[in-house]
C-alpha cells in the first residue's frame, strides 16, 4: 500500500494513479511517433488478439489530464484553507515552492542539452539561433515562436503553459475563493469563446496552440473538482454512503474518456489543420469527465482509491513523473540519431524496421526510467526539501564525511 496515503493529512492517493496513467499514455504516444510500431498482437491465423493502437494514436489526451490535474493540485491546499484546514495562502511561499519543484530538473536538462547538443529536440540550432533557443527556454516563452516551440526540450511547451498559468493563478484563485462555481462557469465559457475565435481567425499553428488563455478552462475544471472534494469532505458527514454511485460515476467517466478517444481517432477530418481544430473545440467533452473522475474517485470504494489508483507502482511512477516527462522524448530523439548497433542500426531506425524498433522502444524506456529515477532522487527531491543552498551544503557535508 502507498505509505504517503496514510501519513500525509489530506493526501489523495487517486491523484498518483491518474498522474501515472497519464505518464504511460504520453510515453505510448511519443514512442509510437518515433518508432511507428503499432501495438497489435495477432494470432497464428492472422486474427487480431489485442489492438492497442487507439492508445498510441490518442495518447496526447494525457496533456489535458495533466492540466486538469495541475489545477486540482494547485487549488487543493487553498480549498482546504477555505474550510479551515491548513495555512492561509502565502503567495511568496507558493512561488518559491513551485520554483523549487520545477526549476532544478528543468535547468539540469537544459545544461545537459547545452553540453550534449544532439539531445536537443531539433538539431538545427546554430550559433545564431542557439541563444534564442536557450533564452526562450529559460524564460518559459518558447511557445511564442514556431522556431523555439519545443526546440530544445520536446515537452517544454506544456511547461511554458503551466508556468504562465502560475502568473494568472493568484487572480483566478481569488475569484474561486469568492464564487467557485460561477468562476469556473465564467472561465469555461470564456475559454470556449476564445477557442472558437481562434479557430475562425488564427492559423492553427503551434504558436496558437501554445497560448495559455486557450487552456484556462482545463485548470478551472480541476480547481472546481478540488473545491468540491474538500466541500464534500467537510460538509457531507455521511459521504461513505456515496461509495457505490461515486465508484460507478468514476467508471463511466473512464468509459467517456475512452469513447472520446475513439471519436477523435475515427473522426472523418479532411486535413491535419481540421484535426487540430476538432481537438481544440471539443476539449470540454474530454476535460469535464476527467475532473468528474477526480472528484468521484475521492469518494469511491477503498479498493478503487488505494488498490487500483493509489498503489505503490502508481505512487512510484507519480514520483518520477516530472523528470520522465521532461526527458523521455529527447532520449528517443538522441538514440535515433545515435543507434545502438547491438539492438538496431541507423538504417533500421530510419526505415522504422519493426523488430529493431521494438528494441529501440524498450531500450529508450529503460534509459528514460533510469535517468528519471536518478534525477528525481539525487536532484529534484533533495533540492525541493533542502532548497538550493541547503542542497549544496548537504553535498559538501557528505564529501567531508567521506
Amino acid at each position: 500500500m502507498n505509505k504517503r496515503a496514510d501519513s500525509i493529512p489530506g493526501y489523495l492517493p487517486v491523484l498518483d494513479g491518474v498522474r501515472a496513467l497519464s505518464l504511460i499514455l504520453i510515453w505510448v504516444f511519443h514512442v509510437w511517433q518515433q518508432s511507428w510500431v503499432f501495438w497489435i498482437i495477432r494470432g497464428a491465423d492472422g486474427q487480431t488478439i489485442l489492438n492497442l493502437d487507439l492508445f498510441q494514436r490518442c495518447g496526447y489526451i494525457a496533456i489535458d489530464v495533466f492540466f486538469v490535474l495541475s489545477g486540482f493540485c494547485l487549488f487543493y491546499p487553498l480549498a482546504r484553507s477555505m474550510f479551515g484546514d491548513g495555512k492561509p495562502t502565502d503567495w511568496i511561499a507558493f512561488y518559491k515552492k513551485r520554483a523549487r519543484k520545477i526549476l532544478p530538473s528543468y535547468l539540469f536538462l537544459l545544461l545537459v542539452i547545452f553540453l550534449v547538443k544532439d539531445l536537443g529536440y531539433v538539431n538545427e540550432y546554430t550559433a545564431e539561433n542557439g541563444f534564442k533557443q536557450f533564452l526562450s527556454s529559460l524564460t518559459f516563452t518558447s511557445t511564442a515562436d514556431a522556431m523555439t516551440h519545443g526546440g530544445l526540450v520536446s515537452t517544454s511547451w506544456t511547461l511554458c503553459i503551466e508556468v504562465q498559468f502560475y502568473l494568472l493563478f493568484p487572480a483566478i484563485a481569488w475569484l474561486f475563493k469568492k464564487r467557485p462555481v460561477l468562476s469556473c462557469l465564467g472561465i469555461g465559457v470564456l475559454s470556449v469563446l476564445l477557442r472558437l475565435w481562434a479557430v475562425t481567425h488564427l492559423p492553427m499553428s503551434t504558436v496558437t496552440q501554445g497560448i495559455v488563455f486557450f487552456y484556462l478552462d482545463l485548470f478551472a475544471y480541476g480547481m472546481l473538482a478540488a473545491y468540491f472534494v474538500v466541500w464534500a469532505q467537510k460538509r457531507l458527514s455521511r459521504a461513505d454512503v456515496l461509495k457505490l454511485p461515486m465508484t460507478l460515476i468514476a467508471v463511466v467517466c473512464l468509459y467517456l474518456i475512452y469513447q472520446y478517444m475513439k471519436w477523435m481517432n475515427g473522426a472523418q477530418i479532411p486535413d491535419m489543420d481540421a484535426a487540430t481544430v476538432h481537438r481544440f473545440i471539443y476539449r470540454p467533452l474530454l476535460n469535464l469527465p476527467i475532473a468528474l473522475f477526480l472528484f468521484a474517485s475521492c469518494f469511491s470504494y477503498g479498493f478503487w482509491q488505494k488498490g487500483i489508483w493509489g498503489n505503490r507502482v502508481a505512487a512510484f511512477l507519480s514520483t518520477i513523473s516530472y523528470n520522465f516527462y521532461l526527458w523521455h522524448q529527447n532520449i528517443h530523439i538522441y538514440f535515433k540519431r545515435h543507434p545502438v548497433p547491438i539492438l538496431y542500426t541507423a538504417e533500421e531506425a530510419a526505415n522504422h524496421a519493426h523488430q529493431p524498433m521494438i528494441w529501440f522502444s524498450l531500450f529508450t524506456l529503460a534509459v528514460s526510467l533510469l535517468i528519471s529515477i536518478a534525477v528525481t532522487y539525487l536532484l529534484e527531491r533533495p533540492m525541493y526539501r533542502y532548497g538550493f543552498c541547503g542542497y549544496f551544503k548537504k553535498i559538501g557535508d557528505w564529501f567531508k564525511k567521506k
Partner: protein
Amino acid sequence: MKNYGLWGFIVLYFIVVFSITKPGTKDYNLSFILDGLGKVPAPMLYGFLSILVLGVIAVFMYRSAGEKGGKFHE
C-alpha cells in the same frame, strides 16, 4: 423563468458565438463546429446521461441516509 440575468447571459453567449464564427471568416465556421458536435457518438451521450442519473441517485441515497449536506461558497 424569473432569472432574467441567466437568460440574458445565454442569449449574449450565442450572439457572441454567432458573431465570431460567422460563415466565410475561415474554413472552420459555425457549421463546421456544429457539424462535428452533431457527430458526438451515441455512447458518449449515454455516458453523460448515465452520470446525470447516477448523480441524482447519489443525492437520493444521501438524503435517505438522513443528511442534507452543506452549502457552497455562493
